[in-house]
Structures are given as C-alpha cells and as structure tokens.
C-alpha cells in the first residue's frame, strides 16, 4: 500500500518540504530507500527497522520502497528517520493516511524508538509557514525552537509510539496532546536563565577616549573598525565591549540570525537570539571555516557573524588568503559559495572589528623600544591587503593607559561636573563645559548605547524606504544624496583631501563617517568638526606611509 508524508530538508541555509513516499507491496522482503541520499540517510534503514521493532511495530516481510522527493536534491541529515518510520506504519494502515496531509515531520530515531533532536528546525518550520502547512511534529527538545515561528502548531514527541498516537488523533485530541507536551518541555528546560548581558561594559575600560569614540562611531553607523596599538593597550578588551553598545536585533533580524544558528546547530535550548552575535575566530582559522565549507556548506564565520560583529584579533597574523575572503562579503553583505553541491548565497552582513600590532614587536613607532626595520614593519602590515584596508572606515590608534590612570580619579568638584558632561555630550559641538578629566560617566556602555540608538533612529528615519540600513552601508551613489555639505565644509574637505592626497573613494568614506558623527550629535548638518574627525580616522588607516 502506498502513502506519503511531509518531511523537512535543509539545503545550505534554506529548507524545503520533501515528500517521503512509502510503498509496501508483495515481493521478496527488502527495504530500499532512494532519492539521492547521503550516507547518514541511507543508514537510517537499520535505525528505523530496529526502532520499529522495539516500539512494538512489526516490520512486514514484504518489499518496502521509500522515495524521498524531489529526487534531484541531495538529502543529508538525520531528520528523515521519523517520517520514514511513520510512513511505514501508515502504509500498513496503523495511521489513517488522510491525517498525514497537513503535517510535517522531522526527527532522528534511536534504536529504542526514542526521538532525538535535529538541527535546522527553525528554517524548516519557517518554510512550513510559508507553504501553509499547519502542523509540525518535532522532537521534544526542538519544541521551543519550533514555537519561535508562532504561525505553525508544533508538537514535540519523545518516542515513536507517541508520534504515531498523536497522528491518529483528530484536531481536538491533538491540541490536548500539544498542551501536555508543551508543559513537559517547559519542565525539562527548567527555569529560563536571566537575560544575558552582551559583553563587558565600557566603564571597565579606563582612558582610551579616542578608541572609545571610534567604537561609538563604528557602532552607530555600522562601520568597520580597525584598532592599532602595542600589546597591552587594551585593544581586545575594548573590542569585546562593543556588543554592549550595539542596538538590539529587530524581530525579523532575530529570526534571521536564529535560523542561521539553528542550521549550524548552535541554537542553545532553542532560544531566539536577541543579542547581536560576536564572533571571534582564532587567527589560525582556515579559509573554509571562514567562508563556509563542505559540499553543501555549513555557515562559516562570516555568516555566523551576520548582523553582528566579526572580531579579528591580531589581524596581521591571519593568513592573507583567509583575510581576502572577507572582501566580497564586506562589499555585498552576502557570501557567494560555489561548491560541488551547488551554488549557495549566505547572508554575511557583519561589522568587522579588527585589532593589530603596528609591527612584529608591537611598539612601532616608539623607536626606543622598536627595532623592527621599516621593511619588517611594512611587511607585517602588508598582510592586510590594501583593498581590505580600504573597506575599513575607521582606524584608531590605541596606546597603553598609564597605570596611574586605572584608578578612579578623586573627584574634587563632586557630581556637578559629571552632570554637566552629559549635557555637553548631547550637543557635542562648540565650546561646551569642561569634560571631566577621565571621561567620567559619558563613556560607559549605557550612555554610549543611548547615543547609538539615537543615531540609529535618525538613520532609520532618513533611509526609510530606501533599503539602506546604516551609514556604513551607504553606496557611492547614495552618498552625495544623503551627505549634504555646506559650502564651507565642501571647501574644507577639498583642501584637506588635496593636501592629504585622498582619492575620491577615500572622500566617500570620510563623508560616510562624518554622516554618522553628525547623527551622533543629533544634527543633519555635517560640520567641519565632523569632517575633521572623519579625516582623522581615515588618515590613521594609511599604514603604508613612507619613512
């Protein structure tokens, strides 16, 4: 007898609904599975046979043929175990076939008939919603993840027998079982941990005002950032603080990022990812790990960092080929992978934060400590290729904070001073009151985050309907449209660009950053101070200066 059942398959980050067709007909007893299957799917035969027997189901001594369609797509993963097993039961009449019509099934089987979790549940359920399939039958452990979508009724099962029982029921009975499963899942998960904080606070970084201002600007406009400085200057510490000032992920973005992590098998306890990812690969990372590798590639570092931060500590130590992989994603926001399993486009819209020493010993240009020859210095930095450096809008030099700067300064003027600082930072321009000696409260994560959010609001308002997300993603064609300069500013930029030898491309980057700086100050007008600051960040990027 023939029957079919819906199953979910993954192809890269995308999912599709597959049909598991089962036919049990008279003939020599055998169990065949076809449909371009990977070895883990072919192995499912043995798992299913034993699981069925242990669940008390008699496998018929007949010819069993299973086809998973569309037969042209390569199937991988273990999510097909459960639908095949249920299909065999249905084709023997143990489950009424009409009850299978509106359900998608996914799950791995153990030999005892237990149902085990699979990865990529979130994209599968999202695909269900898109195709109008009303119900999903998933492993209990994946229940929470499946529920993130909301539009699809999701049932979590722990055992093959339980799954069969569920499918035999009608609408009312199923709902009761779903409620029970939900309660059980909640009990299993235990208490939900408190909202985790996104990285350490900027208040723990003393001094380094220049670097903090650079990080603030980068976060506000989603610009790429490069920190250069000797060892021990606090570059890594500063970079790790950046997530704490990034704006939270939007609803749609949360699902987007969670789906990627679901495919990578990194979605912890099926919780939606709310904080922006912060991916910090070691410098020995291979090109495949960075871009995504495999016949059907798993998401690489650039994709895992989508909508978040890709932090490359000691950037000059990375292999040059690995770094050059970043060029295309940084331009397009996606990575295009051509593999033997087909061509894949993965999202990779990240903010690059990199840190590097200026030379092999780390102390250039302090010639009292650094004995690296100019050639060594240049060779060290030339590992970061020019085109990559060209895509980094903000470059900032960090110097170690003197030990005396680590302690809180003794306040003589009390609270009044620091309150004034807050208001000064608000308008940011002109001769405001004297800021507190050590930067004070202005430079902790909460204040900085507020300013970032404000700047992002302004960008959202400005770019409404254009598809541009932030200043850092402004293309050359839009820069002139959105970065208006007054006559005085124009002349100022022209003069500076002429004197400093900036190309038109460099000017575009200067304008983009200046736009963000103006947004941070809450104004549409780009002033000379904004331009000056932007040029400073740009000039620092000229690492290849002649002696």
């Amino acid at each position, binding site marked *: 007898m023939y029957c079919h059942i819906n199953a979910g398959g993954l192809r890269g980050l995308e999912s599709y609904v597959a049909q598991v067709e089962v036919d049990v007909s008279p003939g020599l007893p055998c169990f065949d599975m076809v449909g371009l299957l990977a070895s883990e799917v072919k192995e499912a035969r043995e798992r299913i046979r034993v699981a069925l027997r242990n669940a008390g189901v008699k496998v018929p001594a007949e010819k069993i043929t299973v086809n998973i369609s569309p037969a042209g797509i390569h199937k991988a993963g273990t999510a097909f175990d459960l639908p095949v097993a249920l299909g065999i039961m249905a084709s023997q009449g143990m489950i009424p076939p009409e009850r299978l019509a509106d359900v998608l099934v996914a799950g791995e089987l153990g030999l005892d008939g237990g149902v085990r979790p699979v990865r990529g549940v979130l994209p599968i359920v999202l695909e269900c919603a898109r195709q109008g399939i009303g119900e999903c039958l998933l492993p209990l452990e994946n229940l929470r993840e499946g529920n993130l979508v909301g539009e699809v009724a999701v049932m979590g099962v722990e055992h093959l027998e339980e799954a069969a029982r569920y499918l035999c029921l009608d609408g009312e009975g199923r709902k009761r079982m779903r409620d029970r499963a939900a309660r059980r899942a909640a009990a299993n998960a235990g208490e939900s941990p408190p909202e985790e904080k996104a990285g350490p606070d900027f208040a723990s970084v003393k001094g380094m005002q220049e670097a903090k201002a650079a990080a603030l600007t980068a976060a506000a406009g989603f610009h790429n950032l490069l920190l250069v400085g000797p060892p021990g200057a606090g570059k890594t510490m500063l970079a790790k603080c950046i997530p704490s000032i990034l704006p939270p992920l939007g609803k749609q973005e949360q699902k987007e990022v969670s789906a990627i992590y679901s495919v990578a098998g990194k979605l912890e306890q099926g919780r939606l990812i709310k904080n922006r990812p912060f991916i910090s690969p070691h410098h020995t990372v291979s090109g495949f790990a960075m871009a995504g590798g495999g016949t059907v590639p798993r998401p690489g570092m650039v994709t895992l960092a989508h909508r978040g931060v890709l932090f490359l500590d000691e950037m000059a130590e990375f292999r040059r080929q690995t770094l050059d992989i970043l060029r295309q994603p940084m331009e397009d926001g996606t990575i295009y992978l051509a593999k033997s399993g087909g061509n894949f486009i993965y999202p990779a819209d990240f903010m690059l934060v990199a840190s590097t020493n200026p030379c092999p010993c780390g102390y250039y240009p302090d*010639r009292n400590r650094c*004995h690296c020859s100019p050639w060594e210095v240049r060779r060290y930095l030339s590992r970061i290729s020019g085109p990559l450096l060209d895509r980094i809008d903000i470059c900032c030099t960090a110097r170690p904070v003197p030990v005396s700067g680590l302690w809180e300064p003794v306040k003589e003027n009390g609270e009044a001073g620091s309150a004034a600082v807050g208001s000064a930072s608000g308008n940011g321009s002109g001769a405001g009151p004297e800021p507190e000696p050590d930067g004070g409260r202005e430079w902790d994560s909460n204040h900085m985050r507020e300013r970032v959010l404000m700047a992002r609001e302004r960008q959202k308002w400005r770019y409404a309907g254009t598809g541009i997300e932030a200043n850092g993603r402004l293309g050359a064609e839009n820069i002139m449209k959105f970065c208006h300069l007054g006559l005085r500013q124009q002349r100022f930029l022209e*003069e500076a660009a002429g004197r400093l030898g900036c190309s038109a491309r460099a000017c575009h980057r200067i304008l983009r950053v200046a736009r963000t700086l103006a947004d941070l100050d809450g104004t549409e007008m780009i002033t000379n101070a904004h331009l000056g600051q932007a040029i*400073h960040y740009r000039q620092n990027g000229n690492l290849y200066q002649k002696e």
Partner: protein
Amino acid sequence: MDSSIFIWKEQARNERNGGKEDGGNTIIERKNDMTEEELTGYFWLCGISGIGAVSVRRLLERAETVKGVLALSRESEAALIGPARAALLERAKEEKRLREAARRLEGYREKGIFFLPLPHPAYPSRLKEIPDPPVALYGKGKLPEMPCAAAVIGTRECSEYGRQTTRYFAAGLARAGVTVVSGLARGVDGIAGRAAMEAGGFSAAVLGCGVDLCYPPENRPLYEWLEREGCLLSEYPPGTRPEARLFPARNRIISGLSDLVLVTEARERSGTLITVDMALEQGREVYAVPGRITDTCSRGCNRLIAGGAGAALSVPQLLRALHMDEGAENAGTGEGPESGTDGEEKDRAESGSGKGAGAGRTGEKPAGEGAESKSSSGGGAGREKPKEEPPVRPLTASVLRALDCDPRTLDEILERLRERPEEQNEDCRREPEEARSGQEIPSRCAMPGLPELMEELLLLCLEGRAACRAGLYTRTDLL
C-alpha cells in the same frame, strides 16, 4: 696625460678650478678633456674581473697610463700583482676584450650611465684627497657643481625626532646651496635626499650597488628623482648586486665627497659610525645632532659629541662651519636659534672634545626657546603668507603647546591639555600682546572635546605645523 698619477691629480685640480668659473659643465661636455681612447682604456682596466682597485692602482703607479699597462711584460705584472692576477690581465689584453670594453662603455652611455676614472678632470676633487679613492666612479644624473657639500647620514630606523631634524638640516643646507650627500638608505639617508630635493637643492647619493639598481626598493621615487635632477654615484660597475660587504666601503665615498659630515640620529652601534670614522680619517668635520640621553636612538650622536664632534644646533651654524654664511641670508634659512648665541655655539662646538658634552646639554635650551618664539609667530606654513593672516582659532596655542617632537595619541594630547589648564589660560591672556598684537583672541580658552581637538589637529596638519603618522601626532614647526 703621460706623467705620473700624482701629476694628473694636480692637473685635474687646476682644470677643475678652471671649470668652476664657467659653471654648468656636465660630465658629458668635459669628456673632451680625456680622449675617448683613454676613457675606454681606463674602463677596460677597471672592468677586468678578478683585478680590484688595489691592483689597478699598483699597475698605474708603475706603468703610469693604460697604454703603459698594456705594454707591461707578464713578469713585471706578476711582480706587481701576483701571478694569478697577471694571468687574468694577460688574457684581458686580447684585442677582442678591448673592443668589447669599448662596446660596453658605449652601452652604458646609452643607458645614461657615465664613467669617471680617477685621473679624469671631472672626478670630484675632494674625493681624490682621501687615502684610498675609488679608481673609478660610475654615475647617473649630473655631477654636483656646488662649491661645497655636506653628508647628512644616520640610522635606518629613525624616530620622529630624527626625521624632523634630518628634514630641517637637509632642506636648510640644500636651500643655501650646499650639496647634500647621502647613501639612499632607508631612514635618515632617504629622508635627507628627499628633503634636499624638495627644498630645490641638489643632492647626491652614493650607492653600495651598481648605479642601475635601486636599493632599497622603497626609495625608488627618490632614486628616479636623483637620476633626473640629482646625482647617483657608485664605485661598483653597473649590475653589481647590493651585498652587505659593499656598503661600508661606500661610506668612505660619502664622507670623501663632503666637506662636513652631519649625523642626525644614530644608535650606540650604528653603521653610521663607520662613516664617521672614515670622515675623521679623511679629516672631515663631523657634526652630530644632540638628543636626549635617554633616547637609545640618539645615543650614538651624543657619544660623538662627547667624543669631540660638533653639536649641530642650527643650519646657519653649519653654514658658518662650511664658510658659507653669506649664502645663508640669501637663501632665507636664518630661522634657527637667535643669531646672538650662534657665534658662541659655533666656537664651543669647534673648540673640541672637552666641551662637547656641555654643548650638547646647553644646546637643547636654545632649540626649545627658538621653537616657542616661533610657535607664537605662526611657524612653518604661516610664514609664507603673512599678508592675509588666518583667523586665530581658540585652540591653536594650547594644542601646539601640548604637542612636541614625540608622537602622541589624541588621548595623551587631551591629558596634557588637562594637566596644565592654568598655563593654558595664562597663555591665552599673554598671547595677544606677545605675538599678534593686532589680532583678537577669544577671551576664554575652552577645554576641547575630542571632535574639536581632532579638527584643530587636522587644521594644524594642513598648515604644516603638525604631522600625523599612524594616528600619532607630532609638531613639525619646532625647527
């Protein structure tokens, strides 16, 4: 041309003095002073592989001319330069080898490379006086015609201080009409050459490889500039690859070409000190730029001063040492420390070893004062356009005060601005009467935030009063 090599030298000197009057002569025109045949002969002799400068000199001392060398018997050659070399020489005497030498010389000439044997009248006279002058020079560009020359040399890994002092001295000397000689090496040498050319002066570089090769490659732009408008010299035939052993020997040519050797920055054990030894052997005056005793980059210089070298404090002082002081005013380089103290400095510097260290110590002071007087008068770029005075910005004075020769980050500049707020304010009050009496200055000196500081620094960079390298700012108008 058939007297001894010493008489040639005499002749050459006379001819050079004659040539100096009409001026503007290049080596190509002076070629007439030596017949083509002779030139080819010397080229052949100097180009025999296996026979070095010492052998050539011995042969010439005995045989007096190339013709004489050709006529020497194998036995007398062997007595002079040993049997092995004599065999090489005999083989080189074949007709086809001589013709080949002529062809090669022609080939070099087409490539713009000139050949200058020791007896040639255009051979730099100063170089002839040193104990072991190169038997021949290969060169590109044109020979220096300036009355005097100074070598500006130093470490390859120079600090910001070294970079600034090098630029100041090289540009100042070049502007006054002194040929700046250096080695086209990384660091100080390259900076000196570039600064001299940028100042519109003349610069010569002595290479440690063939003149058709550029080493180090990063100095390619300067190499090409010197090829066009300056001079490149080497004692090694074109095509010689740069090798470590060749470089110390070229140092004697650098000092030999110069009347004065100025070391702007050198570490304790620097290759530069080899040049200084050579210079002392050759009787050249040696000057060194004093630095702080804590800076390892300046240790070599300070030691030189302690050992009797002159402390180089300003361009006019060096010009006086070169007896070029009247040229100084014309060239408009009288911008160093106050001229009143200059005489003393010079005396002290020249009076020798005992006071050398003292000169170094006190030398810092006038330099600092000079800088301050300058900062208030507008400094580097402001000097060029005194007519339309730019509006005075409120931060300029205090930011300039917070900057110095050491590269500093923005954070450090901010810190320095905060450390001395009283001084800043005082500065604001004082500034108008002292320097720009006609200008009005905003009454309040505001403590700048980061954006204002960045803007001010950028403006200072555009005006040439400050410089930014790798995110660190230095002041450039102190000299």
